[in-house]
């Protein structure tokens, strides 16, 4: 089982480790955009908004074994907002679940990297998502399985704020709090934008998101979803809780890391032309270079 160099419980994560995680997140962003490539429709925005959170999960918080993806004691992560799975693919490849070269096969005929998560194809995936709103219930099932078997693993489920429109999310929220699933942490990628426009601009009242979860009996922590120290501290907070499930509302910027994609609903699921692609790669490479140099 892969172990990570965690700080002591209650201690802040060292600045060196934060810098290392930030570099990994920068590398993930570059790999996400590269695997998507130019002139093809992809979910750029949602994959880039939650990159820092996914980096912290895979390279700071979770225990797992890339050589044995079904290890019974592993921590579980489910991408309920399935369209953002490219970020998870990048993390899985970097963690060694499958070759980095395979990222280039994203969504191609015959690839193990389907457009939305399919556990039967991809090592390291826990379930099938893509139809929004179903993942948190599945995560509850994983947490209940641990309880019945007496296993100690933790379960993480990443949802989009737009996804919270789906009623099943709140069915699952009630189940988790009634069953006191303390091993479960939901993370909301609160990038404020959905496919068409602002997530709060339709006929669904979402805000204040944290209060909604609290009302269903969850312990809530709101963070800047691009501040690595805050992300790590929130994940550590969640794993110390003993009586209720926890939710981390991560306030993010959709398309984070590429200046002209940031906060643009038009890039929810669309393509970059050759010029845009070159600019995006250039920006992300420059960022990665800065972080690599800072580390030396």
């Amino acid at each position, binding site marked *: 089982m892969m172990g990570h160099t965690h700080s002591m419980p209650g201690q802040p994560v060292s600045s060196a480790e934060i810098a290392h995680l930030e570099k990994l997140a920068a590398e993930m962003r570059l790999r996400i955009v590269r695997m998507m490539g130019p002139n093809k429709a992809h979910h750029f925005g949602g994959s880039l908004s939650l990159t820092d959170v996914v980096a912290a999960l895979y390279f700071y918080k979770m225990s797992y074994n890339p050589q044995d993806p079904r290890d*019974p004691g592993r921590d579980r992560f489910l991408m309920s907002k399935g369209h953002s799975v490219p970020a998870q693919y990048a993390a899985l490849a970097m963690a060694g679940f499958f070759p980095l070269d395979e990222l280039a096969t994203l969504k191609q005929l015959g690839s193990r990297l389907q457009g939305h998560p*399919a*556990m*039967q194809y991809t090592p390291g995936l*826990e*379930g*099938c*998502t*893509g*139809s929004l709103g*179903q*993942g948190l*219930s*599945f*995560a*509850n*099932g*994983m*947490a*209940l*399985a*641990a309880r*019945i*078997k007496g296993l100690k693993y933790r379960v993480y489920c990443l949802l989009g704020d737009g996804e919270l429109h789906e009623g*099943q999310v709140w*069915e*699952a929220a*009630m*189940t988790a709090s009634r*069953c006191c699933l303390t091993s479960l942490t939901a993370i909301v990628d609160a990038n404020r934008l959905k496919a068409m426009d602002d997530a709060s601009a339709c006929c669904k009242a979402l805000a204040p998101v944290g209060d909604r979860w609290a009302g269903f009996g969850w312990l809530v922590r709101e963070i800047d979803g691009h501040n690595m120290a805050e992300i790590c501290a929130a994940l550590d907070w969640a794993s110390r809780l003993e009586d209720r499930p926890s939710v981390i509302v991560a306030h993010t910027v959709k398309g984070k890391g590429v200046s002209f994609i940031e906060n643009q609903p038009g890039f929810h699921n669309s393509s970059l032309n050759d010029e845009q692609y070159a600019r995006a790669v250039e920006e992300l490479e420059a960022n990665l270079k800065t972080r690599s140099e800072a580390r030396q």
Partner: protein
Amino acid sequence: MTTRTETRMAYGEALLELGQQRSDIAVLDADLYNSTRSVLFGKAFPNRFFDIGIAEQDLISTAAGLAANGFVPFCNSFAIFLTGRCYDQIRTQVAYPSLPVKLAGSSAGLTEGPDGASHQSLEDITLMRVLPNMTVIVPADDVETKQATAAIANIPGPVYLRLGRYPVPTVMPPGYKFEVGQLPRLRDGGDIVIFATGHMVSKSLEASELLEQEHIAARVVNVSTIKPMNGAAILRDSEGMRLAFTVEEHSVIGGLGGAIAEVLAAGASTPLVRLGVQDMFGESGFADELLQKHGLQPGGIRDSVLKALATAGR
């Protein structure tokens, strides 16, 4: 007087036995555990029983999470809510990755009775049959239900088990052993073949006795496995018959009638008549009244057979 049993009752007892034999069986219900009879399991194994509340979609997805982590979950609700309301969850999270989730659809068909169309599932076989990786089982009586409940726990993928709350006589012979895909021939005859499923097996057997009085010899086959369909058995049982019939308390579109039509269209010249619900919704009424109205009592089945034979003979 013949003893009559509801298949849901036999299921509840079988589920309890299964729980005693295997620690990897989990059971989920959506506030209907008395009706679905999962209550027996729940009382015996409270740590493996979850009343998810009135939230069927949450129930299915939770079961998928359990199934992906070493459990064989049995999901219980009325057939209409389980298959209709949760179609998307079953499709994406259960059938697509072929997880061993067992769906026990209770109070299925017209015989659900007085609650009316909102509760009468007449499309569930169709909905489940179209899903890749899904097995579809409709037991005919208490004996077959008990055996099928135990058998489906061993199938590595998802299964839909259709159950009812209508008392039916035991039709399967002593010593009968249920096997997926076996289509037991319960009566032989050389004029026509009746393919029946679920509650309609006993009704078809009674109809075949009425037909004997009309000098028509009917073969009756219990199609308790609707998927995977044993096409070879269907063709063998249809060979040389003047007409083939399907009988189901379900829409004739896509259910048993649809499944048999697909087999016969590809490999037989026997004309097929599909008896069941003819593309309409149900309504309130007692089970026997509804079966009567839709021509699914023994007399109605006999009349349909005689009429079809008269038309075919012209």
